[in-house]
Each structure stands twice: as C-alpha cells, then as structure tokens.
C-alpha cells in the first residue's frame, strides 16, 4: 500500500474511532502536544495508560473476589481508571467507569461484577483499536508519508 492510500486509511480509521465514541477531544489534545522535540508522546502516554489499566483491572478482579468486599478500595481503583481513561480520551472506558462507581456507592456486588466485565470489554476494544491506529501511523511514517494533522 502506498503512502497516499495509507494516509487515507489512517484518516478514515481515526474518524471512525471518534464517530463511534471510542476516542474524544482529549486524544486530539495529546496529538497536538506531540512534536519534533517530543515525537513519541502519544505512544508513551497510551502505553502508560495500558500498563495502569491492566494493573487496575487485576486489582479490581481480586478485590471483587474477596469474602469481605472493600467498596471504598474498589471505588478508589475505578476512580483512578476513570481518571486515566479520561486523560487519554478513551471515552467509552471512562463512561463505563462512571456506572461502576454508582454501583460501588450502592454497594451492589452484582452490579459491580457486571460493570467490571463491561470495563474490561471496553478496555480490550480500545487497546485493540489504538494498537491498529499506531500500526497504521508507523507504516505511513515508514513510507515517508506525511502524517495527517490532528
């Protein structure tokens, strides 16, 4: 695939991610912070987000499997996840965290377990999509094609 085609594909893919609500404005903000002095900024931040999220999802699964459920602790983890997803523009992950916190406040275990599944699903989706996005970017850059402006 040549640079022009790749570029078109990247633009279309990006537009889809936004129109389907996977990403929001905040992701664009991050892209705008990337420049020659900081050329890998978006990948670096998103990698941190992946690491953080995976850790938090593990902690959440552990906490929800305890005999005595510590809802405060769970709420704190979800708050963290909501924060990072909001900061990178991972809109659907952020949204799923909001419902999660509501169930925490209500001390509703079933609700929390369902929400955990939902958050995991959304996380898995956005991880996949962002990896595809970065792959397209990389391939475009390898052809010497100019990246689309965010």
């Amino acid at each position, binding site marked *: 695939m040549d640079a022009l085609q790749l570029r078109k594909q990247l633009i279309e893919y990006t537009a889809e991610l936004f129109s389907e609500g996977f990403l929001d404005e*905040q992701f664009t*903000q*991050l892209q*705008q*912070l990337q420049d020659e*002095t*900081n050329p890998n*900024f978006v990948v*670096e*931040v998103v990698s*941190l*987000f992946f*690491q*953080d999220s995976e850790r938090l999802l593990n902690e959440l699964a552990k906490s929800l499997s305890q005999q005595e459920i510590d809802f405060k602790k769970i709420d*704190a983890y979800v*708050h*963290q996840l*909501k*924060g*990072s997803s*909001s*900061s*990178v523009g991972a809109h659907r992950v952020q949204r799923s965290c909001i419902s999660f916190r509501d169930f925490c406040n209500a001390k509703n275990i079933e609700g929390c377990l369902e929400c955990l599944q939902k958050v995991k699903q959304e996380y898995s989706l956005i991880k996949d999509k962002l990896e595809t996005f970065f792959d397209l970017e990389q391939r475009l850059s390898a052809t010497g094609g100019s990246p689309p402006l965010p």
Partner: protein
Amino acid sequence: MSYASASSSSGDRTSDHRDLPHVLAVDDNHVDRKIIETLLLNSSCKVTTAENGMRALEYLGLRDGQPNSATLASKVNLIITDYCMPGMTGYELLKKIKGSSFLKEVPVVIVSSENVPTRINKCLEEGAKMFMLKPLKQSDVKKIRCHLLNCRS
C-alpha cells in the same frame, strides 16, 4: 514503574533554564503526571513531578513541618496539585503549604476530575489561586502561566 522521588525535567526549548518558571506538579496518577509535565514543558516551564503530598513536601524542604534550611528560598514558582490523592489530599497539601511561612507565597493551583462546588470553595478559601477541571488542556496551562507566572509570548 513508579517515581521513587520527585523528578525534574526542562526540555530543550530555551537555552537559559534559569529564567524558566519552575513548577512542581503533584499527582498520584502516572498518566496524568506525564501529561501535565508535557503541558508545562510546552509552556516553557521547568517541571518537577511528585507522586504524592509527602514527596512534594520533602522536595519543598518542608518535611515534618520543619523547613530544611538548605532547600529554602522557595525553589518553585508554582505548585499544581491533584485534589484526590491517597494519604494526603491536595487540600491537605495546600493547607501545609499555606501554613508555612517559607512557602505560603507560592501560588497553588488545585486540579480535580470532579466539579464539586463545596470542594472548589474550600480550596479557594484556603488560599488556592485557581481550581481547574481535569483533564487539563494546553489552553488551561497557558491561562495558569499568564495569570500566575511571568506571561511570555
């Protein structure tokens, strides 16, 4: 990966780092620390980050309320802190800073992902110069830079 202590960076944006305002950014969230650091570097600031209130106080030389005379003469021009942090909240950190004769003049900005009017009011009453909502954008940092530090084009 976690910050064992405060970490500083200046970037290569200007040649004379001594002129750049020095900002201490405090946030327990790793993603947010990276973003605020870049936002500040992009606004021509020298940045030090800390992962919690204790580390921030240590860096400021205000551990256990006793100023470390070797680190006095406020080495920072502005402190930006997240509100919700485990251990010491941003509000508690603000109180400690304002309660210190050595640090009380340093402007403090509180950031939070939650828009809670009572929270905002109590921070402003305690002496925070600004309260901003996360996630921060470049325009928010420019605003902070202009209002609280030397506004340079």
